């Protein structure tokens, strides 16, 4: 089609759209709303996305070089390796805990050896109020920490556990973690703690500012070859190249979701265009009488869609940018970092307008095709052709629905996400194709219905196009939540099939950098849960000497190779624990006690041991320790959390030269408790117990947990039942509960 006819039909389309303003506004709104959502998301993502520059500044400030800590190398040593005029700042940190007003507070303390805010530390922290600390004993704390400490600028804070006292001189945050409970201390504030308890203070890095004119590459080259630094040096440019921007992926997902929404929108908008085409039949007839060809008629309807889609896209972009600006004040909270000014992503916005235009054109395609099929005399007389009966494709659609449903049903318990997605996809596509058949069947049912229902049902069937569009939109709109639900249910089925703990078990983990195993704790747990068995899950290590270094390495057990059901194989790899009869009883494996006492390693579940041996190793292949030991599988259900272990008796461990590993080696002290009866929901401290104000709500029958620990102790308690899958998944990670209650005050202090 040449330019003149195109202009002519575009003019007709645009003017017709303008004349039917109410209908056009409806279509424009339908396109604009999802596009608006997309653009708000795009603006928010672009604004909130951390640029490589911001990301690098968050851990190397304005420094030219980042030097990772190396044993025996301090600021003065590093300075000696650098050209004169270079500035070096050491970044140290520690973690501690305290209680304020009965509440437990975690603190992360950072200290720069130069006043924060000066190069090369500039950019590491963002000052919100007051000033940066410039001397020992001063600190700028994050608002989160000040809230927790119930302190404000000018107050002094004393942390007994960390032997640190500071005066708050300002509020400052890490730009990428503004809610982090931390304080930036003035130079020298951690000296006392570092000398008294060196393991509590870590050097994070050294930040180096080179003198102007110095070649960064040349200095990097000389430092990286310095044996003392072990190659732990990088330049700003290197860090930038390693940094990545993930905002494109998020924007891509937004586009995918919006496209789906627009598909649903397009179905409804198509009905509006069908009505529009019907109302302008006379115009289309006149176009034909004036010499318009079917393609001109089609183009007129499509142009209407393009015009409205374009306007909808533009309106959506305007809405989206306004939305992006509106949510900008809340982006810090949403993004979990301090974001800069609003950034408008031009390309995605242009893409959004294109998407809107496409949606409009897509919605108009069907009505355009129908209008193109009309003869001029039909159009002039306002007659529509008789609708065709649903054909073979619709029947194929019904078959596809059945196949899709079968695949989904089989994939749900098998928790196979690709098959689930495939099944749901086939089912949705089948429904879309089969809609005309469903509408026809609805019409056939009408004769059996009472008068009013018959009239409405016949009306639905007569206006098949409009009904079909509405059903199609509903199918697409429902497909997303149904799909998500199916996948979630599948995951839940997996969770239920692989319980974390038995009904009567609790897993207790002490969290804290200096937490130690304390035998008195066991007694306290036992007293709380009368008749229970409590045993520590003590890791096992072997001490090895390599060169002049002697180190303890934790031992792991590799179980037999297993089929993963998807064409691959996997191994159970679990830590070896030292334990006796108590531990096996706590793990429901009393019957394996004789085997343990005979010196056999005990695994849990029928798949844990192949034959009668397992491989015990340090986990690393090169020059590591590896030994095959006699083993037996305890005939008990395998609980993900409790029994993903192998147990060796203390006597056998000693024989083999194994020892109980230092808890600090890999993990925090962990205990497993088996009560004398299943624990009910009220005993679930990992669920919502922390919200219950009542005391003694921790155990069945009102038994409490009278455990007293010093202020910095935390216990993580996990159990299987009574908690929602989401809670269980969360608990599997790092859900923490504090035990802080005195004898005779059972259960108080859980929060």
């Amino acid at each position, binding site marked *: 089609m*040449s330019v*003149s*006819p195109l*202009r*002519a*039909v575009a*003019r*007709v389309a*645009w*003017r*017709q759209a*303008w*004349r039917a303003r109410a209908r056009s506004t409806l279509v424009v709104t339908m396109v604009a709303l999802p596009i608006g959502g997309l653009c708000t998301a795009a603006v928010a993502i672009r604004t909130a996305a951390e640029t490589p520059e911001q990301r690098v500044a968050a851990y190397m400030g304005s420094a030219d070089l980042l030097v990772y800590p190396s044993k025996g190398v301090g600021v003065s040593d590093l300075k000696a390796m650098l050209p004169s005029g270079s500035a070096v700042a050491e970044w140290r940190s520690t973690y501690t805990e305290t209680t304020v007003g009965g509440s437990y507070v975690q603190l992360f303390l950072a200290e720069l050896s130069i006043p924060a805010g000066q190069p090369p530390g500039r950019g590491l922290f963002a000052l919100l109020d007051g000033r940066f600390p410039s001397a020992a004993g001063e600190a700028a704390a994050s608002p989160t920490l000040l809230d927790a400490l119930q302190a404000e600028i000018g107050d002094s804070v004393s942390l007994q556990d960390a032997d640190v006292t500071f005066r708050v001189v300002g509020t400052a945050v890490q730009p990428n973690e503004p809610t982090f409970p931390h304080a930036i201390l003035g130079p020298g504030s951690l000296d006392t703690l570092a000398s008294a308890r060196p393991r509590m203070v870590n050097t994070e890095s050294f930040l180096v500012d080179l003198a102007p004119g110095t070649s960064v590459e040349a200095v990097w080259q000389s430092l990286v070859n310095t044996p003392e630094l072990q190659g732990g040096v990088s330049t700003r440019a290197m860090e930038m190249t390693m940094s990545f921007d993930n905002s494109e992926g998020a924007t891509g997902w937004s586009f995918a979701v919006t496209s789906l929404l627009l598909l649903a929108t397009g179905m409804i908008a198509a009905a509006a265009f069908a009505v529009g085409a019907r109302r302008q039949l*006379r*115009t289309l007839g*006149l*176009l*034909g*009488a*004036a*010499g*318009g*060809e*079917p393609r*001109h008629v089609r183009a007129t309807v499509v142009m209407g869609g393009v015009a409205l889609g374009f306007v909808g896209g533009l309106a959506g972009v305007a809405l989206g940018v306004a939305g992006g600006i509106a949510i900008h004040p809340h982006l810090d909270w949403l993004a979990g970092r301090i974001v800069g000014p609003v950034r408008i992503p031009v390309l995605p916005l242009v893409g959004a307008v294109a998407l809107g235009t496409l949606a409009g054109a897509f919605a108009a395609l069907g009505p355009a095709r129908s209008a193109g099929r009309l*003869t*001029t*005399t039909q159009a*002039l007389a306002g007659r529509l052709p008789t609708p065709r009966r649903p054909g073979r494709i619709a029947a194929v659609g019904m078959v596809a629905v059945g196949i899709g449903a079968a695949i989904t049903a089989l994939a749900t318990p098998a928790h196979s996400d690709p098959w689930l997605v495939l099944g749901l996809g086939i089912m949705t596509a089948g429904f879309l194709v089969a809609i005309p058949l469903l509408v026809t069947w609805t019409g056939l049912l009408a004769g059996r219905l009472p008068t009013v229902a018959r009239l409405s049902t016949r009306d639905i069937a007569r206006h098949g196009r409009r009904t079909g569009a509405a059903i199609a939109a509903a199918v697409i709109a429902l497909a997303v939540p149904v799909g998500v639900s199916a996948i979630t249910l599948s995951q839940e089925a997996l969770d239920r099939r692989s319980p974390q703990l038995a009904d009567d078990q609790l897993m207790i983990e002490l969290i804290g950098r200096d937490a130690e195993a304390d035998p008195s704790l066991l007694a306290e747990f036992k007293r709380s849960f009368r008749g229970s068995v409590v045993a520590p899950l003590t890791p096992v290590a072997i001490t090895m000497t390599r060169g002049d270094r002697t180190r303890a390495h934790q031992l792991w057990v590799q179980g037999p190779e297993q089929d993963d059901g998807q064409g691959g194989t996997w191994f159970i790899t679990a830590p070896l624990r030292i334990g006796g009869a108590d531990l096996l009883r706590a793990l429901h494996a009393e019957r394996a006690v004789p085997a343990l006492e005979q010196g056999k390693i005990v695994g849990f579940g029928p798949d844990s041991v192949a034959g009668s041996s397992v491989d015990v190793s340090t986990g690393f292949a090169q020059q590591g320790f590896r030994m095959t030991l006699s083993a037996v599988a305890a005939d008990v259900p395998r609980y993900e959390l409790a029994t993903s272990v192998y147990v060796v008796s203390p006597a056998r461990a000693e024989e083999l030269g194994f020892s109980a590993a230092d808890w600090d080696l890999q993990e925090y002290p962990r205990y497993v408790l088996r009560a004398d009866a299943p624990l009910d929901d009220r005993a679930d401290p990992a669920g919502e117990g922390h919200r219950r104000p009542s005391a003694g709500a921790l155990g069945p029958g009102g038994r409490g947990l009278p455990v007293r620990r010093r202020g910095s102790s935390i216990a993580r308690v996990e159990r299987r039942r009574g908690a929602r899958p989401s809670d269980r998944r969360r608990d599997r990670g790092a859900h923490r509960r504090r035990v802080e209650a005195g004898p005779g005050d059972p259960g108080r202090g859980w929060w």
Partner: protein
Amino acid sequence: MTTLELARVTKRFGSGHLEVDALTDVSMGVQPGELVAVMGPSGSGKTTLLSLAGGLDTASEGTVRVEGVDLSSLGARELARLRRRRIGYVFQQLNLIEGLTAGENVSLPLELDGVVTRSARGAALEALALMEMAELVDRFPEELSGGEQQRVAIARAVVGERILLLADEPTGALDSVTGESVLRLLRGHCDRGGAGVLVTHDARFAAWADRVVFLRDGRIADETRAPEGPESLLAQTARR
């Protein structure tokens, strides 16, 4: 060459027991410069005859020729091209596309035919000037009276090199004075060498034609010259 020729044309609608012949064995011709009026009661097949003559519909039997071209030999695109270039339509009412101005309505067939917009607008202005409507070129249909709308419709029907003008009750919705002015324009088109077919049920307007064809039940019942009378005299005057 005969501008329009219908040879033993039959048009059937429906099928089976619903089948009905709208036209049966109709033959007629329209010469250049001739205005033929088609009269008959409702349902006699007047509009069907016009649709077949303009290529809007196809004959079940027989042949329709425009300037010697058998319309049944043309595809949809060729038929549309023929309508754009050689055939113009005027309907009883709602002749104009509401979203377009008078000028745009008139230039539409030319623009659809690929004529550059500026040239098409020039030709439209000329056609409107012929209808004494040039000053209303930028008015939208709702800003025009019924008679003015029909004049714009005639301008669109004759714009370019159209030679066959088909008018289906063009005066049906107009008062007699306005109707006469419309008829004068149709007559003028034929007097300039074009051919015209006027469907009407009003003898006063049929008197403007050179020949009147009477249809009844889809067949030509009679064919005669225009009746004598004051309107015919008026037509003679206009022709002179």
